[in-house]
């Protein structure tokens, strides 16, 4: 009987095709062309957000009344706004705001949703039933209505915008995680953990939560784009990030509409930035979903 010696040369290792990092990358690009585009956008945004101070010579918040409403040109690549601030600079710093709000809101919202969703599946019974009804109520409102209501309670500021975006994300993630966790609860290792006398918290966090990581990651990546869009909408309404902080939605408020006829660049570029960012994150998110869980694919 032939046995395969794993440790010796020419064993299983050779049966598995060896691929260099480069080959793997090329394969990934071919398989997920749209996802690659999204990934590049995400990387570009992170570079902009992290290196904002080095990428531009101008200050994003300081008014410069000598250079108001200058058209795009060599000195100011994308022109200046009604306070003389360089639009390109504000876009670069705006990436920082958008990413900060997007990442924090998605991560916190999805994590709370993860814990609540697994808890709901684990305990089941009355707890699950009541929990589901509460989630239903939260889901009965469009995201923006919920976020608006929350911002109006705490007042507009960057921190409160994050809270306002996080809360409506929680039920959306909890619902998906719960349906996945329901299947996991039936797997014997959960019974085994219970038989060993582990606490509920330990079983939920150490045994069940790690096994619903795929839907969790999918939800996070899907949330980031939505969060960026929501932040922009709230800021546009004047209920989000406040002046003078650079934020894309805020750049479209006030001046953008006032000067639309004579200085359209104030309104055009921030919108392109928002669209590109959300576009990139959505494409990236779709690919992550396809790779992690092909069943969820909507084609």
């Amino acid at each position, binding site marked *: 009987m032939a046995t395969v010696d794993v440790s010796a040369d020419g064993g299983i290792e050779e049966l598995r095709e060896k691929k260099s990092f480069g080959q793997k990358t090329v394969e990934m690009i071919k398989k997920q062309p*749209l996802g690659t585009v999204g990934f590049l956008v995400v990387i570009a945004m992170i570079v902009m957000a992290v290196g904002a101070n080095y990428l531009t010579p101008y200050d994003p918040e300081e008014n410069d009344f000598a250079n108001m409403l200058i058209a795009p040109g060599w000195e100011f690549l994308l022109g200046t706004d009604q306070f003389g601030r360089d639009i390109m600079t504000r876009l670069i710093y705006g990436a920082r705001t958008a990413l900060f709000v997007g990442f924090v809101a998605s991560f916190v919202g999805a994590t709370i949703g993860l814990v609540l969703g697994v808890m709901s599946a684990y305990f089941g019974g009355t707890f699950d039933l009541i929990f589901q*009804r*509460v989630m*239903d*109520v*939260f889901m*009965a*409102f*469009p*995201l*923006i*209505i919920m976020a*608006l*209501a*929350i911002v*109006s*309670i705490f007042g507009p500021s960057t921190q409160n915008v994050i809270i306002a975006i996080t809360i409506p994300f929680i039920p959306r993630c909890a619902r998906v995680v719960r349906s996945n966790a329901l299947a996991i609860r039936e797997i014997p290792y959960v019974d085994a953990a219970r038989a060993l006398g582990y606490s509920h918290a330990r079983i939920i966090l150490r045994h069940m939560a790690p096994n619903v990581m795929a839907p969790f990651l999918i939800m996070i990546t899907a949330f980031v*784009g939505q969060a960026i*869009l929501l932040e*922009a*909408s709230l800021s*546009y*309404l004047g*209920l989000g990030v406040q002046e003078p902080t650079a934020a894309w*939605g805020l750049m*479209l408020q006030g001046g*953008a*509409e006032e000067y*639309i*006829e004579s200085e*359209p660049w104030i*309104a*055009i570029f*921030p*919108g392109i930035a*928002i*669209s*590109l960012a*959300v*576009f990139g994150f*959505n*494409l990236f998110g*779709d690919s992550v979903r396809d790779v992690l869980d092909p069943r969820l694919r*909507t*084609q």
Partner: protein
Amino acid sequence: MLKYTIKRVLLMVPTLFGAACLVFFLLRLIPGDVCELRMSGEGGFVDNEAIAVCQEELGLNDPKIVQFGEFIYGFMVFDLGQSMWTGKAITHEINLRFQLSIQIAIMATFISVIIAIPLGTISAIRQDTWLDYVVRTFSIAGIAIPSFWLGIMIILGLLISTQAWLGEPWMPPIEYVSPFVDPVGNMVQLIWPAIATGYRYSAVATRMTRSALLEVLREDYIRTARAKGLFEKIIINRHALKNSMLPVVTVIGIEFAFLMGGLVVTEQVFNLNGVGKLFVESVQNHDFNMTQALVMLVALIFVVTNFVVDIFYAWLDPRIRYS
């Protein structure tokens, strides 16, 4: 069917009640109230007595539970009370604005269907060709582009093109005219926000049409139809599309409910006096009665739309009724 319908109606009650609780207590968490805001609006001087009188008048000093009871009772008998800000009846305040918003919502839904079904169909039939990729990119872009920015761009486009062709810039009118009084004026005003919102909402429906159609095209009866030599056109129109419309209808129905939320921002861009704008204003004015009424209206539309979709679904597919 009757039993199923009754069951579905009863399921609406806890959701609505939950929504009522949520909005009521959320609003009571806001620091300050409408009286303080109204009094302090007039030049810095705050008359504490006047505030107290005003609070007493509006019933803000009653125990929370009494206020809550009145709110729920009012909702049940369709008496929404008066706006705390203007003092006028809420039904009166909402009436015209609701007409405007619901009209945009219907037009936007219509536009999204016109875009979504042909595009989704093309995309499915020509799966994995460049045409498919173009359509998919177009629809993903629809989700990414903020509708308020699209609105601004539409206004910009209108200004530039009217300047070029008519010699002077033209903007859609701001004053709302009923479609029954002046259909042309009404259309000219509302078609733009409807396009801005409709494009966004077409994205989800396009993807749904595509995936549903792809699934149906793999069915055996489609192969049979092809085997007996039917024209591809007839196969798609008569056999495939009809059977793939079920999930698309659901998506469109649910979207309609969410459109009311999307309108909040679009109305701001086009400066339209609709429900969305009223909502933002009433939240800022701490007008509890008005905010509650509007939130309940949105929740009601959501619940009723879901209900209609479910019933429609059950009517089309008997298996759902009995499960």
